[in-house]
């Protein structure tokens, strides 16, 4: 039981980092990306590669993962600078599909469909973090700074610029804001912090393959942010905790057929998304009004 709870708590931390970073661009900048799992994946693969080929020291691995993901996020930022709304959704969806193909086909680096096996445990000053309780502590030590960093950023003038862009890109532009630069920076920051979650995940699982970084993951992260409440600090965390508890809840309902639990879970996410959008588009924590992407698609 303790092992189960530790595992759940660790995965919650990792997913919360992802949800927070996704909310950073989705809820504050109004950049609606469905490619977040790709940055998670890039972080995980680069962390795994460094850990297996160089050193498992987290003070080396995590920065490398962040830099690689940050650089790659410029690929996403490129179309993001030019287009809005539905165009950006399509572009990020494209990146998601391309990314999965690269992950599963670039066999010499990512191990193809089989993935990367035998990732050594994370090391801090020569001490290997293999104990689950210690790893949870490490995950918390990553979650808290990410939360603080995004919180501080959002309170700064940068955060106000982001909200201005979300509410009206044209007005922000007219006000002399460098919209392109602000958007690019927010995408890069979000991707870099998502890579931290990727590195943690690679160390925690000890193996990674493409299945963890597919469209389903991006959608799940999106559901976490939306159900919790976009554009709020607490929303993504509430959403993560709720959606991560859901599988446990379903497995207690013994009348459900065991083979269908995965589908039932997905249906619950889907229904929750539909019903929330009809009755409470701001999410559970939100004010009832949606706070993201107010600009109508036109």
């Amino acid at each position, binding site marked *: 039981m303790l092992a189960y709870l530790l595992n759940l708590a660790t995965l919650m931390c990792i997913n919360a980092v992802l949800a927070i970073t996704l909310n950073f661009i989705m809820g504050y900048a109004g950049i*609606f990306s469905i490619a977040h799992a790709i940055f998670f994946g890039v972080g995980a693969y680069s962390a795994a590669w460094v850990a297996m080929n160089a050193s498992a020291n987290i003070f080396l691995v995590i920065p490398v993962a962040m830099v690689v993901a940050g650089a790659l996020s410029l690929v996403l930022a490129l179309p993001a600078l*030019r287009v809005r709304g*539905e165009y950006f959704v*399509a572009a990020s969806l494209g990146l998601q599909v391309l990314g999965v193909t690269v992950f599963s086909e670039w066999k010499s680096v990512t191990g193809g469909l089989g993935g990367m096996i035998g990732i050594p445990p994370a090391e801090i000053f020569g001490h290997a973090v293999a104990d689950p309780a210690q790893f949870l502590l490490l995950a918390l030590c990553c979650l808290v700074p990410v939360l603080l960093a995004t919180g501080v950023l959002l309170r700064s003038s940068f955060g106000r610029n982001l909200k201005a862009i979300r509410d009206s890109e044209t007005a922000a532009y007219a006000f002399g804001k460098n919209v392109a630069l602000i958007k690019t920076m927010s995408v890069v920051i979000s991707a870099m912090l998502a890579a931290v979650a990727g590195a943690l995940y690679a160390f925690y699982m000890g193996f990674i393959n493409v299945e963890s970084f597919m469209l389903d993951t991006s959608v799940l992260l999106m559901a976490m942010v939306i159900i919790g409440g976009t554009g709020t600090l607490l929303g993504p965390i509430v959403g993560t905790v709720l959606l991560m508890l859901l599988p446990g809840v379903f497995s207690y309902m013994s009348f459900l057929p065991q083979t269908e639990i995965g*589908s039932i879970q*997905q249906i619950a996410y889907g229904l929750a*998304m*539909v019903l929330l*959008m009809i009755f409470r588009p701001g999410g559970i924590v939100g004010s009832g009004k949606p706070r993201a*992407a107010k600009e109508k698609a036109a």
Partner: protein
Amino acid sequence: MLLLQLLINGIQVGALYALIAVGFSLIFGSTRIFHFAHGSAFTIAAYVFYDLLAIAQLHWTIAVLGAAAAAILFGVALNRFVYIPIQKHEGSFFTVFVASFGVGIVVQNLCGMLFGRSFVAVSTPLSRSVELMPGLYVSPLAGIAIAIAVLFFFALQMFLMRTHTGMAMRALSENPELVRAYGLSPRRLSMTVFALGSLLAVPAAVLSAAGSGLNPAIGHHVMLISLAATIVGGVGSLRGAACAGLLLGLAENLALAWFEPQWSEAITFIVLFLFILFRPSGFFGRATAS
């Protein structure tokens, strides 16, 4: 010879993509609803057809009619019970998109539970390929797909240009207020748009069920294609969506001459990326991206 084979396959697939994309584009163009669940209408139609023909052993005309009825019912009900309530309080692109994405997830998993997650195909005498020339195999379905795509597209054009409802639909995309001022109900019109758009996915669904087969995740693929085709063709242009659907089908198949099959979906998106970067208004688009 390989290239000719791939070209024919590409046109066959492209004709179906074009039909699906035109349906999506029609809905998006006239109601501004980002109907991501259009792929679900396709999945539902395909599975109803499969169920009626292969499992219930009914005549194929009944199966086709059943598929059409199911798709139309799905589209209209979704508009009535999800999109209209959302638009009543807040109609942002984001809210509608999320809800429609949620519907897509529900439908995909329900189909998986009801029909199983593996590939199923309806085999008909028409699906069997005939060797036209040495090394060149074509099934009669290819010809049917192309003929039906052309037929439906022209019927749609006639409907939009010649009938009152069609003209009102075009007006709806330009100016909903004006439509209301003329005493037409935008709400009833949007119902018609959804019925028509969903109907356009049916021939493609039936032909895919009889040709390449289907699984519950196919709706996703269909949706990606129609989304890409709508943007490559230029938002709001039905002609553009049709051409882009054809182009994407061709690109996907011709790419097989040089790349592994796993890359076909990625190729679609490379085409999309290039368009977004260099020609965001698409082939015939009026509206630019930003």
